[in-house]
């Protein structure tokens, strides 16, 4: 799987042009209808819903009111928004610190050796967020968690419970984001010319210096695009903050779902969703722009000048 930012397909057809007849349009009919109805229309409904009025008996009535947005932007929800963004950025940073070197080293291995790791990454990626939350709540619990292991090793006096809490949320965020980041970086890293780091080595760079000064600058767009993808994915996660977090870590998706399902207040849920969408797009654009700009230069020992 490649990131949605992957370069578009190049038409391989030598005689592509106007003389194709109706075929392309016939073939495109179903994808166009399906994606418009199932993707574009729902977004439009959410955008409109934010201005509708909630009614007690049913779901909502058509109106143009701004109180939903006033509530979505009140002090409480703005604080939740800030918490959501900071948590997602922290998880993104940790994920990239693991995924970038791991993917680079993985793609330097022979293809056949990569397969078991790719299977593990794919299986982890597909694991339900519900199962991930359950597994981490066990791993961090008092009765079945790693604290028992630490007690057995004499590193701790008594088993402790670390879930729910901030650490549990971040660990699980990184767990769901890591496979996505690896698979998003994989195509670009695979296509990196093997000779580049070798040339850096010939010119006296240590492997680490070669990685930081030669490989990373070439990969910065892919790394930034992956960062944006991971950020958005984590920012939209519901089960992990809901299950592994205390109310202090309840992010926007928890409150959006709460309003939509428990409190039956769809217009407020929609306005919260639009606020989240705008903020997540802005942060993602900034991350991608950072990737297009200059990579900070490091002066490392062993770098030939």
């Amino acid at each position, binding site marked *: *799987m*490649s990131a949605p930012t992957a370069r*578009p397909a190049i*038409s*391989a*057809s030598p005689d592509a*042009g106007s003389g*194709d007849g109706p*075929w*392309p349009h016939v*073939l495109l009919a179903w*994808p166009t209808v*399906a*994606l*418009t*109805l*199932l*993707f*574009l*229309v*729902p*977004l439009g*409904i*959410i955008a409109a819903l934010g201005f509708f009025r909630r009614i007690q008996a049913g779901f909502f009535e058509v109106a143009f009111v701004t109180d939903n947005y006033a509530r979505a932007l009140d002090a409480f929800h703005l604080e939740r928004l800030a918490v959501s963004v900071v948590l997602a950025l922290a998880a993104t940073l940790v994920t990239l610190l693991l995924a970038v*070197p791991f993917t680079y*080293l993985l793609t330097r291995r022979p*293809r056949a050796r990569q397969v078991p*790791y*790719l*299977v*593990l*990454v794919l*299986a982890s990626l597909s694991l*339900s*967020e*519900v199962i991930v939350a*359950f597994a981490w*709540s*066990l791993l961090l*619990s008092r*009765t*079945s*968690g790693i604290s028992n292991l630490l007690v057995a090793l004499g590193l701790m006096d008594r088993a402790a419970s670390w879930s729910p809490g901030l650490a549990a949320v971040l660990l699980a965020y990184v767990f769901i984001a*890591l496979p996505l980041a690896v*698979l998003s970086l*994989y195509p670009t890293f695979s*296509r990196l010319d093997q000779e580049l780091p070798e040339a850096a080595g010939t010119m006296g760079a240590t*492997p680490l210096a070669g990685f930081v000064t030669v490989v990373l600058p070439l990969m910065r767009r892919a790394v930034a695009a992956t960062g944006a*993808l991971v950020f*958005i*994915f984590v920012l*939209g996660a519901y*089960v992990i903050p809901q299950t592994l977090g205390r109310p202090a870590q309840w992010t*926007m*998706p928890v409150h*959006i*779902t709460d309003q939509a*399902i428990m409190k039956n207040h769809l217009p407020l849920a*929609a306005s919260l969703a639009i606020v989240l*969408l705008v903020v997540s797009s802005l942060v993602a654009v900034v991350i991608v722009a950072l990737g297009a700009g200059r990579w900070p230069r490091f002066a490392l020992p062993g770098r030939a000048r």
Partner: protein
Amino acid sequence: MSRWLRRAMFALVVAYLLAPLVVVAGVSVNPRQVLFFPPEGFSLRWYGTAFTDPGWYRPAINSLLVATFAALIAVSIALPLSYVLWRYRVGYARVVMAMGLAPFALPPVITALGALALWIVLQSYGRPHTVVLSHGAFLTTLPLATLTVGLQNLNPQLVEAARTMGATGGTVFRTIVFPYVRPYLLAGFVFAFVLSLNEYIIAYMTVGFTFETLPVKIFASLRYGYSPVMAAISALFFAVAVALFALVGRVGDLPRLLGADERA
């Protein structure tokens, strides 16, 4: 980088990804209704419960049905779309492509809320086809990504040669393009299938408890009482995912399917 550094990095990532599953597998074999790790003995009774208790196997059947049809829909959207984009120059095809890739650029909760709002407006909230269609559109991104990679790797000279020898567009598709992209199509189907099987928030917001899928059932148990059956089901899910992806790796070239270029 040095071999030592590589081994440490691989060990760290593998340990991180496997640790929670090791605990889940351990908890699932507790003979009593406790969630101890290490387990207090060994028993497979909770795996038995998963297959005999209708409270667990009905949601499992629901999930399998949803995933099968959703993956078919995802592929049915992705195949013509990626083919037209590769073969013809049609202005709006890129816009449709952007819609197909966009779900992964949206926070998942927003996709789910959109699905909820759509099906309420269409007055079909809670009916099984809603989750199938919404999953299908959401997961189209995966076969779209694998098929785009596949078509990029297909040698255009092959197509040109066939056309010079008089093959029509349909014949070229049947005899060259389709056989070539079949492994990418299969991989895209498997990705969409496995992700649908595991998807929670869209399923929760479209059908919720009226057509309970396994993730929705596990989430309910997570809030209203843990049980070792949850661990057994989770371990089974992971095993199924590993088996399916290992199978894809057996019949196809996994690095290439995931976008590595065409070298030996």
